[in-house]
């Protein structure tokens, strides 16, 4: 009995350990910083038809990690206008990168996240937000699932109670009725 208990606790400790080790390693790693090393290397390119411009994304000199984090967060809430449902953050398109540049510029000017969101909604409509504003009719999708869960929970409680009332006998495998 004691042996079993000890074994059980051993598992209990082993499992978190397996999960913790890798996540802890990454948790210790510092946030991104930048640096320049080495010399220039040779580069050859031909001329592709459309060139996504490298404009907007900061170089080592202009990088501001906190602001970049805010840009990423806002970009994740906006829908890429030329993609199929991707966020601006996830989209590889040029327009998305330009929108991120606009976001970055506005944050640099001191605009708040709400103001940035309002800017895009004023130009693209509510559609540009990936999470509908919680107001008016939109509240339906926020409250209906909750209501359904609560109602379901109440119903489950009643069902269990009802089952128990008829409880006591274990019903054998129900007899078949002729097809």
């Amino acid at each position, binding site marked *: 009995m004691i042996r079993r208990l000890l074994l059980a606790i051993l598992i209990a400790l082993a499992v978190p350990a397996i999960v913790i080790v890798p996540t802890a390693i990454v948790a210790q790693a510092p946030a991104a910083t930048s640096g320049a090393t080495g010399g220039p290397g040779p580069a050859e390119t031909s001329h592709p038809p459309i060139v996504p411009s490298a404009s907007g994304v900061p170089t080592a000199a202009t990088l501001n990690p906190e602001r970049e984090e805010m840009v990423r967060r806002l970009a994740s809430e906006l829908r890429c206008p030329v993609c199929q449902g991707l966020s601006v953050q996830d989209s590889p398109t040029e*327009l998305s990168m*330009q929108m991120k540049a*606009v976001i970055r510029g506005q944050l640099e000017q001191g605009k708040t996240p709400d103001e940035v969101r309002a800017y895009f909604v004023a*130009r*693209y*409509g509510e559609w540009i937000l990936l999470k509908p504003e919680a107001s008016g009719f939109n509240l339906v999708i926020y409250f209906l699932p909750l209501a359904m869960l609560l109602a379901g929970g109440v119903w489950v409680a009643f069902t269990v109670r009802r089952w128990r009332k008829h409880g006591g006998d274990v019903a054998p495998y129900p007899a078949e009725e002729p097809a």
Partner: protein
Amino acid sequence: MNWKRVAMVLLGLVPVIGLLAFGLSRDPRQIDSPLPGRAAPMFDLPIFTDPSGKQLGRTVRLEQLRGQVVVLNFWASWCLACRGEHTVLSTVARKYEGQGVQFFGVLYNDTPENGERWIAEMGGQAYPALADDGARTAIDFGLYGVPETFIIGPDGRVAYKHVGPVTEEVLVEWIEKLRAGAPATEGAS
């Protein structure tokens, strides 16, 4: 057969099927723009080529155009649909030349060299072409893609947004309406 329950279920299904049928009739890619009726975003864009030969200075600012009807067409050399509407735009531009109607083409996500080459290929253009660095103005106008055409009234408000290649009828209809002094109200087509 419990017909009462069947009736209830059937009743409940009517709105569901109705919704799906409604969905079929809508185009999910067509988004109504909130701009019409509102003041047009300010822009200040450089002219990279002026085939009409008019001397409009080196940049165009929206404030300078107060009192005129402005037709702003966003295009790109890689945009196939833009080819169809090009002649229409130039024709209508010429028709209303000097009558308080200004046409501008705004290049979207393309290089001025490509733009000039494309205009030359298409046999010229009756109005200036503006460069929009970083698509700032395009984003300011809530652009989803090209071609899109905005018609701005003399009061500086966006009257109408057209998604896709624009037609002569649409252009003329709106220009006439605005010159006659009708207020900006319509949404996008």
